[in-house]
């Protein structure tokens, strides 16, 4: 079992089992403190914005294309921002720590 550490908008940490082989969004949309993911993972809405813990950032491929364009226009954007529908969770990412970004 690969674990995902999620920091919610109130700063509380949650440890959950991550669904491997699909995007982080599919795990995070099930959580009460998770993401809205209105478009369902089509990279069209930027409502699944997260911050990746800096120590993990280099282990993820950099955002590209539409994701990058959407991120660039978010007021809450940071260098660690990702849209979690574009980040595939794998067992190799066991322990990955992410924080839910504020609602825009």
């Amino acid at each position, binding site marked *: 079992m690969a674990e995902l550490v999620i920091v919610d908008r109130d700063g509380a940490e949650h440890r959950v089992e991550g669904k491997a082989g699909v995007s982080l969004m599919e795990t995070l*949309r*099930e959580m009460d403190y998770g993401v809205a993911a209105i*478009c369902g993972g*089509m990279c*069209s*809405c*930027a409502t699944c914005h997260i911050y990746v813990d800096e120590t993990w950032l280099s282990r993820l491929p950099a955002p590209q294309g*539409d994701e990058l*364009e*959407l991120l660039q226009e978010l007021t809450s954007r940071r260098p660690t921002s990702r849209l979690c529908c574009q980040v595939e969770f794998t067992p190799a990412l066991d322990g990955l720590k992410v924080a839910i970004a504020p609602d825009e």
Partner: protein
Amino acid sequence: MEQGVIVIGAGQAASTAVETLRKEGFTGEITLVGDEPELPYSRPPLSKKFLAGELAEERLLLKAQSFYDSHQVRLRLGTRATQLSTQTRTVTLDTGETLNYSKLLLCTGSSPRRVSVPGHDLQGIHYLRSKSDVARLAHELTANRRIVIVGAGYIGLEVAATCRQLGLQVDVLEMAERIMNRVVASPVSDFFAQEHAKAGVNIHTRHSLAGFLADPQGRVCAVQTTDGAQWPADLVLVGVGGLPNTELAARAGLTIDNGVAVDLYCQTSDPDVYAAGDCANQFSTHYQRRLRLESVDNAFEQAKTAAQNLLGKSLAHDKIPWFWSDQYDLKLLISGINMDFDQGVLRGDPSTRSFTYCYLRGNELLAVDCINQAKDYMASKRLIADRTSMDLMRLADISVPLREATAQG
């Protein structure tokens, strides 16, 4: 406040409402009544990746069963609400049971508009709204078969793109003079028509449906248009818009106006009944007109508002709506409503397959269509909400970021 909430319908709006009720700390009973036998699922992929067989069924679910269990939501799926009485605050189900509510939320959605021309009930004629519609359609989609699609709106064109990817021969019949006539301006419509033509879709505009012809087995074999032309078909998809599901509300005496009429708070003409999503018709203060929108975003936002308000808040819903459509590798993102625009400005060159079309009234930005232009789309949301006056010269220059193309004081 301990009370029971019944949500009728089990789509995006219902799923969001249930989640919001619990997030807001509501501890009373929640019952979700849905006529489909499925947990709430995401509909947009139905005409795209799911139809193409590229998305597993369980990935359509908005929430897993465990969510409803842990949030104590009573699921009454595969069950239809047949009667609503606002006097006794009861809902009767097709099982014969009667349920009491303190507050009710109608998320009954919309249904494809059915055509009633001769031959309309032949085998091989499809509509697309639900997972079961896809199940029937998908097994017919084999390479080299001929599909005739009636209607060049989102559903028709998304299915056309998917069918070309699967190797079918595709004809699209559209009665208007151009495709996506109701939603986008000519430059955008023309661009998509060219892309479909390049992909091998045969689009025939100004052709109105007259009827369907049957083979000796009683299966559709051709579509006839009013000019007398016949279009051979192994199967047909009809995508000519949606109608709100208002029967239950209408019989209960609620005010209906192209949908269940709700106020800014998503409340219907009965104070204990709210409505959200495709079935609801709401006044938009931003656009100063009543709107009934069929979109995931609208279902989500109205349901969130309705759920909070039925717990006692009074939040007005007036967000700028947005829409998207995927056809081939083209992502069309639309922000705002372009009705009443008096000028359009093109940003960028459609031949690069990345451009934006802006709709304005005077200099005020009303809406944008962004084709492979996610950046403009994101920037447009605030500009539209703030009724920003644009500088038309700078707006037409795609090298100027959209948020900097505003009129200077």
